[in-house]
């Protein structure tokens, strides 16, 4: 009994300790040369860190359906974009209050996820992936063509900052945005953990392993898959709101299929079906994408011969190549690599990543 208690306490303490450490980052005036151009508490670095944390959270919402339930969707960004665009349009074009806008955007995303999820689950597997892609593409076309002059097509829509909560406006408040992104990450983390350890969550994971067996047990797989899909999509829409605040508006790239594909890359690089894996993948990917762009245009790379310079100036080429190598040689991602370490490392890591992860590893 006491071991059980210890275990659940550890399960809470670990993430809280990590998030707590991250929370004090803006208070540290540390300079880490090479890793960050500016001191850690400068707005530039904090903005980069905030987007890393946000993408960690978005990757985790994707992992909920891909890694835990086995649903390969290519349309996840539809809900992120809906959350971001609808909130932005409501405050900027319709002059609503911020909280009204957020509530309506969340409700709309929830409803849309139910409808489209229901339709796309008429098919499974690869066909499901194609159908979700098609729906997301329809959303992207809608945002591009902009029939009502709401999204402003390729220009994107800058948010009306007078309607935003004042704590999140302006460069001096970058640290608040950092804390917002961190709070969102922590929120998604605990919601996902609660969900996958609940009894429907166990059915999701059973569906991932063997859908036919779940059906034989008398449980309707489609209803359970729809649950996971709707929860993941609604969390993603909330992430879209944070995205809108972080980037002061919405741009077309948010709606495009490549956005979902990069989330997929993050989850697989970090380790699908693992909370820390998805978060780590999202953070690392975002950081590398940002830093490689800077390195690619730096003088050190410009001095290189042409054949080396070209690939190095394209972060997506490098990240895509890393991703392919990882899929072939390192299934399980970075977390899988750690788990395959020595038995003692594995035990410590299991303790570190909590009971849920230990159950998956076995």
């Amino acid at each position, binding site marked *: 009994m006491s071991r059980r208690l210890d275990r659940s306490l550890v399960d809470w303490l670990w993430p809280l300790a990590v998030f707590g450490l991250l929370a004090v980052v803006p208070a540290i005036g540390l300079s880490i040369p090479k890793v960050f151009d500016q001191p850690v508490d400068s707005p530039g670095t904090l903005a980069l860190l905030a987007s890393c944390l946000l993408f960690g959270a978005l990757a985790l919402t994707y992992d909920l359906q891909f890694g835990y339930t086995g649903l390969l969707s290519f349309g996840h960004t539809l809900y992120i974009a809906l959350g971001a665009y609808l909130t932005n349009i409501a405050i900027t074009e319709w002059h609503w209050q911020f909280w009204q806008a957020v509530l309506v955007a969340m409700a709309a995303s929830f409803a849309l996820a139910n409808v489209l999820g229901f339709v796309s689950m008429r*098919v499974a597997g690869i066909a499901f992936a*194609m159908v979700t892609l098609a729906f997301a593409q329809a959303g992207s076309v809608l945002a591009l063509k902009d029939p009502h002059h709401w999204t402003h097509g390729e220009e994107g829509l800058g948010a009306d900052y007078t309607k935003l909560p004042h704590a999140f406006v302006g460069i001096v408040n970058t640290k608040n945005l950092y804390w917002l992104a961190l709070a969102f990450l922590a929120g998604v983390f605990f919601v996902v953990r609660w969900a996958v350890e609940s009894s429907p969550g166990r059915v999701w994971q059973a569906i991932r392993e063997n859908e036919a067996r779940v059906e034989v047990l008398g449980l309707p797989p489609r209803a359970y898959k729809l649950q996971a899909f709707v929860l993941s999509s609604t969390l993603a829409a909330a992430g879209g709101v944070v995205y809108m605040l972080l980037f002061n508006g919405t741009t077309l790239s948010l709606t495009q299929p490549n956005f979902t594909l990069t989330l997929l890359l993050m989850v697989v690089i970090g380790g699908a079906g693992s909370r820390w894996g998805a978060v780590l993948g999202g953070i690392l990917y975002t950081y590398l994408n940002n830093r490689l762009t800077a390195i690619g245009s730096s003088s050190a790379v410009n001095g290189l011969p042409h054949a080396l310079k070209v690939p190095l100036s394209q972060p997506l080429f490098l990240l895509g190549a890393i991703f392919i190598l990882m899929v072939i040689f390192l299934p399980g991602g970075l977390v899988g690599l750690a788990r395959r370490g020595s038995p003692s490392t594995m035990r410590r890591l299991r303790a570190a990543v909590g009971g849920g992860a230990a159950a998956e590893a076995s």
Partner: protein
Amino acid sequence: MSTFVLLTLTGFGLAAMYFLIASGLSLIYGLMGVLNFAHGAFITVGAYGTWWSSVHVFDGVHSDLWRWLASSAVGLICGGIFAALVELLLIRPLYSRHIEQVLVTVGLQLAFVALVTGVWGPDPQTFVVPAWLHETTDVGGALIPNDRWVEIATAAAVLGLLQLFLRKTRYGLIIRAGVENRAMVQALGIDVRKAFTLVFAIGGIAAAVAGVLGGVYFNSIQPDQGTSLLIFAFIVVVIGGLGSIGGSAVAACLVGLVQQYTNYYASSGIGDMVVVLLLGVVLLARPRGLAGAVVGARA
């Protein structure tokens, strides 16, 4: 009336490209269960192979027609070889792990477009085509751009050749049998893996044809041109029924025409939405696509 004729022929021209992409996707999926995102890269290889050889190899050829045909041939060969290499090097090591195979093709598509952008820049490129392709023909008062005829004729020829290949040759027989029941074909002692490389090469060539024709249809080529064509080709494949060439052809015409008509008669962009709606309706009514009942596609 003349507008209607123009829209119809333009719709078929677009359908031709959708079909060229979808036929390869559908065969690959039907036989191997792989959703090939890298098909967009095959389109890019075909288009850039044609452009590169047109500028660097055949720049001394005076006849625009021969220059275009010769450089297109290089583009198609590049597309076929690239596709076969992708199958051998990236797909084969992940045999029967379908999700991982999809992931690899996704990574390849992203990395490849980035590489092409890095090497030749994001700007559109144009290659030399015979001047008459950009002239028009009068059909009952409608001025039809000549490239539409070439697109439609090429797609029809590819459809005919594919059907001939699938119905009259031994490899075609293996592929058709493999689409229906791969395990049984293997149990009969036939090495299906050779057929895998073959369908990838065929799909790569067909996609490269679409890349070349896309360069004519859109007047230019861009690194990520394949991606947007690919999404509509996915829709065509699902509507047509996975694994069916005939289904793909019918669905491609349906999608191309619906898109053109609604984009013109309703408003620009609505056509794309209606196509997605069409996909939803087909899925609700016939989850296996139009030809699904015939091939018993593994959905």
